[in-house]
């Protein structure tokens, strides 16, 4: 039985990582074919630097993700505070409604926003994409910050208030530093999801506004070249950096909580 389980573990890891490794390995392939090995080269990476369209898409992605992260993190944090600190009438209803955007298939959210933009004459492009990314990111940030708010004790805040701090001071001096790792973790998650999103951007960006994911998609649809392997490898590296940062903050959360206990 143990053998079977071990074989399964190995197979699952192979299944998860062989495709990713294949992309990385073939990004150094000198052949013109994306999947036939010819020899080692860095030339595809060098070509990335000359690609103006790619850099424009990259810049757009960073702007969208940056702005959406700031908005979603602020709103997600206030939502998490309201959910954890207060009991109010529509709390459960709000909670269900809040998580609905990440439960429904993303194509439904995408076309709903597209129709809405056309109806309200909100121009499709930068602004419309940022608004759309916030819709799903607010939910994710709320989840991460709520997790941080649960199981932390309110006595510190009470002590601060007893010592004469007003609520504003209490928030910035006590609450905020305590939940900061959760907020940073939520922001990192939001930024990554925003950079990686394709479906919702594809529908809400309109013609002519391209983010990195949309750019890669059009490359895949209209002529696959080995350059895609190099772009993909860069994005993979970027994701790994972000996940390590996220885990560092999450890790700090758990160790500091343990210290408190």
């Amino acid at each position: 039985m143990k053998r079977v389980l071990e074989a399964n573990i190995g197979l699952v890891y192979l299944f998860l990582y062989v495709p990713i490794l294949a992309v990385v390995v073939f990004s150094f392939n000198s052949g013109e074919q994306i999947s036939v090995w010819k020899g080692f080269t860095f030339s595809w990476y060098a070509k990335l630097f000359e690609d103006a369209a790619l850099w424009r898409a990259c810049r757009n992605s960073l702007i969208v993700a940056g702005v959406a992260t700031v908005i979603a993190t602020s709103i997600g944090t206030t939502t998490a505070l309201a959910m954890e600190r207060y009991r109010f009438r529509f709390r459960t209803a709000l909670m269900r409604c809040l998580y609905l955007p990440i439960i429904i298939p993303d194509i439904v959210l995408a076309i709903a926003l597209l129709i809405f933009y056309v109806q309200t004459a909100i121009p499709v492009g930068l602004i419309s994409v940022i608004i759309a990314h916030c819709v799903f990111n607010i939910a994710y940030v709320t989840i991460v910050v709520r997790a941080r708010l649960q199981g932390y004790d309110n006595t510190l805040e009470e002590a601060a208030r007893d010592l004469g701090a007003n609520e504003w001071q209490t928030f910035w001096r006590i609450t905020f530093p305590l939940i900061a790792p959760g907020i940073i973790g939520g922001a990192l998650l939001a930024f990554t999801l925003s950079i990686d999103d394709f479906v919702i951007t594809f529908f809400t960006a309109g013609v002519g506004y391209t983010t990195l994911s949309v750019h890669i998609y059009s490359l895949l649809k209209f002529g696959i070249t080995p350059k895609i392997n190099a772009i993909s490898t860069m994005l993979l590296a970027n994701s790994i950096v972000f996940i390590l940062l996220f885990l560092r903050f999450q890790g700090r959360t758990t160790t500091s909580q343990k210290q408190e206990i």
Partner: protein
Amino acid sequence: MRRNYHLLILLFPVVFWLICFFLLPLVSVFIYSFIERGTYGGVRWIFTLENYERLFDGLYLGILWRSVSTALVCTAACLFLGYPFAYYLARYKPKHRNILLLLVVVPFWTNFLIRTYAWILILRTEGILNNLLGVVFPNWGPLELLNTPLAVQIGLVYGYLPFMILPLYAALEQLDMSLLEAAQDLGASPRRAFWHVTVPLSLPGILAGSMLVFIPTVGAFLTPDLLGGGKVSYIGNVIERQFKTARDWPFGSALSFMLMGIVLVGTVLYFRALQQSESEAT
């Protein structure tokens, strides 16, 4: 009074955002699904049920069935691969367990588009798999794997397997091992103990994982588009076509509403099953 005022400030942004950019858009999809399409791709504000009537056309029912059955097969495959995996991981030495778990989380954080593209690299006619098999068997005739339902199925399992493993792991890690020992002390065979103790206790994880895999796969658009090559239609692709090329937004809206309906039925069944498993546990 002052507390209420604070709560209002905290809640205003999220309520505003959800109403304006989530609920109102959903309402507009609902309205669009009942109006006529215009001659040049626009819409005409005339009430009609025709969009919903078209859904019951044999063609669309077939596509719907394909989407649902593909999502069910995908969920079952993820469960089959993920359960023993999560089971083993939950019993692994705590020191290395976190690293092993991290290796499951990394794909969740990496770009879905790129992870799907990776399978094009592997499955193409002159792809990695065919080339490797060609080296081992010199007379190998390349398999046409890409642009088939099988490729779509592989891509979906690959994309959503971590969504199954993580809730399963969370459920199995909390499992009280003494219950298993008790079952075995009372004479249950390991197999019996597994089916009568481990599986029922991990049911919340099984249900949550199945939901997280089923919902996105039933409406998947990108995987069928890239790995199916548009040759086999799934509901996600049909919706995309109504909005991008066919420009029949009212019909696309009706399709989206049907998709939401399927998801809703799935969610209701999930909560029912969850309640049942909880009441049985107590």
